[in-house]
């Protein structure tokens, strides 16, 4: 299982998208990777408030960058809204621009 794990990580760089697509249909045992769904669609959040740090924080990894949606699974519509929310939150120091 750990072998497979490694394999999938290695492939993530080049043909990642294709391979991930195959996974959810094939259903690889052990390594359970649920089809990622947009958190905001799921919870029916229409307005991503920049003041709500608890809502935004999961999409800001340690480095402080905005998490790409290929990783978080957020839909295009909500990623755009999330992006502006994060940028606003950065301006008023609720969320860092960079952390090192």
């Amino acid at each position, binding site marked *: 299982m750990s072998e497979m794990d490694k394999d999938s*990580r290695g492939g*993530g760089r080049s043909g990642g998208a294709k391979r991930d697509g195959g996974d959810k249909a094939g259903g690889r045992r052990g390594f*359970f*990777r*649920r089809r*990622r*769904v947009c*958190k905001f669609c*799921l919870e*029916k959040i*229409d*307005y991503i408030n*920049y*003041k709500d740090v608890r809502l935004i924080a*999961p999409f800001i*990894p*340690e*480095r402080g960058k905005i*998490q790409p949606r290929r*990783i*978080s*699974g957020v839909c295009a519509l909500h990623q755009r809204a999330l992006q502006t929310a994060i940028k*606003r939150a*950065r*301006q*008023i*120091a*609720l*969320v*860092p*621009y960079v952390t090192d």
Partner: protein
Amino acid sequence: MSDVRQYELVYIAPPETTEEVLADLHTQVAAVVERFGGTIEKTEAWGRRRLAYEIAGHREGAYVLEVINGPGALTAELDRRLRVLDAVMRHMIVRVDEDLAAADRARVRRKSATTARRVRRGLPPEPTESERQRRADEDDDDGGMDGGFRDRGDR
């Protein structure tokens, strides 16, 4: 659209700012808003909060949020004033009425779509208590999703 818009103003004062100074800031903001024929819908003092990064040598700040209804010209003046004030380290004015209205529309649209779909299937328009219960159980399940993407997230 009418010319009355809704804005949110957030400003951050140094952490050692006294109540009087904060009150004074608020009256200054209120004066500008009034001059342009706007109104302050609500004021929220968040109190001292940790800043995500250092501003003007401070690691903490006293946050104040003002929700303002008024014309667009108001923001320019407000922005200019706040820039000059020493008691404000950082401020931001954001227009929110359009986004909130869009969110409202989305909510209404989804609600009516759900109702229409349910009626078409011959179900009562509103989800029943037992259905809601089932939905909640499924939601618990999805909690695992977070872990799923975080482990690849920070690389």
